């Protein structure tokens, strides 16, 4: 965002900027890898019905050994089967959907809430900031996972509820970052000039403030998806997140954990999927921070 740090308040055309950022991401090995994983996972989620070799809900008789144990990877079931004889690979593919839907939904709500609170507090200042930021401090001191578990226990967990619960826990970081940035921007000349000219609050916020906050929102939004994916997996592992039979990587491990010593693939593959997706968003988010924030250049 080098242009925004100077007096010019307008940004270069959006399309060219986005293409430039994507090119920069692809030129770095780490973020190129992350981007590739994300594209692959989104593809798997979108085209799940055509990729899945088996019905992920079918408790196949062939899916269990003679003594009724889950089958190890190989042969008809590429990643093996679970305790009920269901194909693990198909369940993981469908689980990609769950993770991405919750990741995008929960993170989207968290961004709206966090950025909204941060901008309102930073722009209006005074008692609005005092109330909003005290509340943010309070949320920071909450043991996040305990809060999420209690919230999940209050409402019957559906996909939307799980996403909302995660958003309630995760918006705080975004609010603090955006608050700090908005506060310093609001005192700058080009905003003061707009105020003096009598521009409305909404116009200043949308036309002049938001464009400058966009890069932080993109960076922390990307990193936030990783946090969201991990929290969803943890809640589902504890049994208070996404409910079976809807497959999620976390609840696959939850359902099969008692057998991990004899059927380790039932923990290993879903675990690897969680790490891979969270890692991809962390790598891309970290690279975006380097690319979009020139003040950090040369430090790493």
């Amino acid at each position, binding site marked *: 965002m080098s242009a925004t740090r100077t007096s010019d308040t307008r940004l270069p055309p959006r399309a060219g900027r986005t293409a430039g950022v994507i090119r920069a991401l692809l030129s770095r090995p*780490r973020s190129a890898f992350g981007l590739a994983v994300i594209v692959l996972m989104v593809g798997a989620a979108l085209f799940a019905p055509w990729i899945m070799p088996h019905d992920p809900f079918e408790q196949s008789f062939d899916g269990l050994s003679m003594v009724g144990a889950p089958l190890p990877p190989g042969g008809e079931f590429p990643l093996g089967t679970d305790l009920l004889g269901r194909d693990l690979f198909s369940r993981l593919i469908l689980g990609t959907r769950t993770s991405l839907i919750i990741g995008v939904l929960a993170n989207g709500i968290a961004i709206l809430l966090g950025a909204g609170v941060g901008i309102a507090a930073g722009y209006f200042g005074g008692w609005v900031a005092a109330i909003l930021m*005290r*509340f943010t*401090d*309070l949320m*920071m*001191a*909450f*043991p*996040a*996972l*305990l*809060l999420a*578990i*209690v*919230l999940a*226990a*209050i409402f019957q967990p559906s996909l939307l509820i799980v996403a909302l619960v995660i958003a309630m826990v995760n918006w705080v970081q975004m609010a603090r970052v955006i608050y700090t940035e908005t506060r310093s921007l609001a005192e700058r000349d080009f905003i003061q000039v707009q105020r003096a000219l009598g521009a409305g609050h909404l116009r200043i916020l949308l036309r002049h403030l938001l464009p400058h906050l966009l890069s932080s929102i993109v960076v922390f939004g990307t990193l936030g998806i*990783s946090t969201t994916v*991990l929290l969803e*997996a*943890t809640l589902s*592992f*504890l049994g208070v997140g996404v409910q079976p039979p809807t497959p999620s990587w*976390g609840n696959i*491990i939850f359902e099969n*954990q008692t057998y*991990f*010593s004899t059927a*380790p693939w039932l*923990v*290993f593959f879903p*675990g690897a999927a*969680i*790490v891979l997706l*969270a*890692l991809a968003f*962390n*790598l891309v988010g*970290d690279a975006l921070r380097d690319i979009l924030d020139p003040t950090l250049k040369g*430090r*790493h």
Partner: protein
Amino acid sequence: MQSYLIRRLLESALILLGITLVTFILLYLVPADPARQIAGRSATVETVQNIRDQLGLNDPFFAQYWRYLTSLLQGDMGRSYLQRAEVSELIASRLPASLLLMVAAIATELMMGLTIGIVAALRRNRPADHGLMIFSFVSISAPQFVIGILLLYVFAVQLGWFPIGGYGSFAHVVLPAVTLGFLGAGWYSRMMRSSMIDVLGQDFVRTAQAKGLGRARIILRHVIPNAILPIIAMIGIDIGLFMSGIVVVESVFGWPGIGQLAWQAIQRVDIPVIMGVTMVSATAIVLGNLLADLVAPMIDPRIKTK
């Protein structure tokens, strides 16, 4: 400094007060009826009503909250609904195990994180640096239950080096501590690396080189001590991460700490216990943040206490 300290203490107290209110509201909304839990499935409606009366659950919300708050200020956290014990006794009996785990986990994450950060900074932009940084990215992207179960599988089930779970000896603490420390190690290694790179670029390092000091001596005596200080100041902030981590890690390893206590209480809607553990955790987090804020200006006088 003194007025800053007083202001921060007051703020902390207000935050904790706010947390009692928010938690109380949330637990008030939990649909499961604790009286029904206590009375059991076969109890009559009257029995359940009697229990509700005894526990004061039929009182208006603010009466209940006020009663909780006034007894909390006198050090009384109430009684567990399901176990015949005071909440404070339950927590006191579980706290040593969690504190032990926390100390072991902090030691693990510092050893792993600082070593990785130092090596990566000294080998900046070389293969070793890239490899270590990828490792640190993986460690912050891995959920603790996955790490825990995998460590159990490899080191307890397959190799048999450590017990599968439980509490009691040094061998028991290793795997849960590594599981908890793994996440922090990722953060510390990245912070330590950039702190080292900062210090390596400063004038006094060049002065030391100009004086003809050996590289090993410069790094051990001048660079590392300066780079470590701001990192150590952040330990206080870690406590929030730990308080979330112990719920999962203690349940994976059957570790009898307050995380396990909280998880059992949540499953059985034992509201006074949930409330108690939340308050203890929140107090630890608030104190940790306070500590970090107070230590930072002592280490780096450029940070002003306003």
